[in-house]
């Protein structure tokens, strides 16, 4: 039996949300739900040290949060910018599941539920 892995630290950083095209809060709420269900990661404040993944949530393709200063705070980063996830065009209705998939890939989490709440 392998020892239980220590939950990875995931932080969320918003662009500033001046005029969001998409509902970023919905994505963040879903991540909070994922955290509770999985136990594989823990959401921490962006100010925390040694973050594993920073999820940068930007309301539009301008992606004001896509900057080195934010990305360098963690080993990995995931970028939502308007209707795109990590540069891949993603319609608003698929943003949550795509962001979840990308996070799971980054954390190597298998078979997680993808339902919205």
């Amino acid at each position, binding site marked *: 039996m392998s020892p239980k892995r220590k939950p990875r630290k995931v932080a*969320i950083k*918003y662009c500033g949300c001046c005029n*969001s*095209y998409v*509902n970023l*809060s919905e994505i*963040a*709420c879903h991540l*909070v739900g994922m955290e509770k269900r999985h136990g594989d990661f823990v959401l921490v404040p962006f100010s925390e040290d040694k973050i594993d993944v920073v999820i940068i949530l930007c309301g*539009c*393709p*301008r*992606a004001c949060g896509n900057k080195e200063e934010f990305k360098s705070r963690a080993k990995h980063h995931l970028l939502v*910018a308007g209707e795109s996830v990590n*540069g*891949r*065009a993603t319609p608003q209705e698929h943003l949550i599941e795509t962001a979840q998939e990308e996070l799971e890939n980054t954390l190597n989490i298998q078979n997680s539920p993808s339902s919205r709440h």
Partner: protein
Amino acid sequence: MSMMTGKQYRESLSKLKPEIYYMGERIESVITHPAFTPHVNAAALTYDMALAPEFEELLSTKSHLTGEKINRFTHIHQNHDDLVKKVKMLRALGQQTGSCFQRCVGFDALNATYSVTYDMDKKLGTKYHEQFSSLLKEIQSTDIMISGAMTDPKGDRRLSPSQQKDPDLYVHIVEKRDDGIVVSGAKAHITGAVNSHGHLVMPTSAMKKEDADYAVCFYVPVDATGALHIFGRQTNDTRKCDCFLDQGNAEYGIVGGEALIVFDRAFIPWKHVFMCGEFDFAYELVERFATFHRQNYGGCKAGLSDALIGATYALAQVQGTDRASHVRDKIVEMVHLTETLYCCSIACSCQGYAMPAGCYMADPLLANVTKLNVTRHIYEIARLAQDITGGILATAPAESDWKDPKIGKYVDKYMKGIAEIPAETRIRLIRLLEAMTCGTALAESMHGAGSPQAQRIMIERRANLERKKRLAEKLAKIGDQPKLVY
């Protein structure tokens, strides 16, 4: 060769033999024919200014493909700074020419095609982007001028391309061969077409499966067999041939010089084909080109307006009205409107974003707002200029009468404003104002880069009205109340 001078540009055009018609005649040379020289001069300035120390920072840059110094008009935007510099470059050029310098259309076509071919290859496994990048390298290294040819004649606007009685009303593929395709049809209102080295032809609207033969994008040299050009008339265009001063802006003209390009079974080799039936990418290409082109208008038109405001202010001084409070107020309004347009272009550039191809694109919503404002503000700026100028704008005697040995003294005497300034100064300013505000130049602001309704359609598509509704519902406490998280 890398960057050309204006002189080299003219020499390079003289080596080409495009088929051009104007006023019932076959035109042998656009370099020497007076109907074309202003447009050649304006385009030549895009070459000379790129090499001038004052402007090289805006008009030249480094190729992301080769690392070589290139003219910005052949560049693919690599960041926000490139998008902003494009607008600044256009304003600087507009100030110097007071007219359209044509080269932005091909520039925008290059940028739109670059990103769309990348996306097509990713999704479809085609090789268009690689082919296009090869052509782009060639364009950058030879510094040739490319026109962007999008608008088809369209025939019956109620019908799609494939539904038209005459299939040639939209450019289409008539034959696919082992070595390339054969196309027929026409592109209308193509700026700078007759003094470009080649055309980048793009579809004009969204296409359905049945329109697949019309979803075609290709490059064709200006003097290719099967391509001919019919140059359009402009307001007061005969003045180019029979006078100088009455032209108002004899060096650079009043607009870009637009032509109808006709393709009559023109052959395009595969290496110059960048879309061939992929109908579901036609709209992407149209929208990206339109966004890039609409981004421009608060740059170039602001530059033109700077010159127009200067002419209006100078004329008010010549006529002794410059201290009148209502004249000063109107000039302030002209400045306000001009800078509003510039703000729009700068804003859509700063709000631009990276594309999957790595290049940058202006914000489509703000770019469309920019152009829609141009369809109004330029008219208002022109109206104020005409108001301050007075009725003489429409009634000034001819240059030939001013020079006439018998009656010239009367023209000189009665065209004078304040005593210290010669009548000639007033006549020259009036003619410049006439050229810039009375005729084709205004229609160009209305319909260039698409008519106002085209901008409204794109604005509605990107308005995100549902989100605005949610904002209102939150304030009015209607339904579920969204919460802020983190």
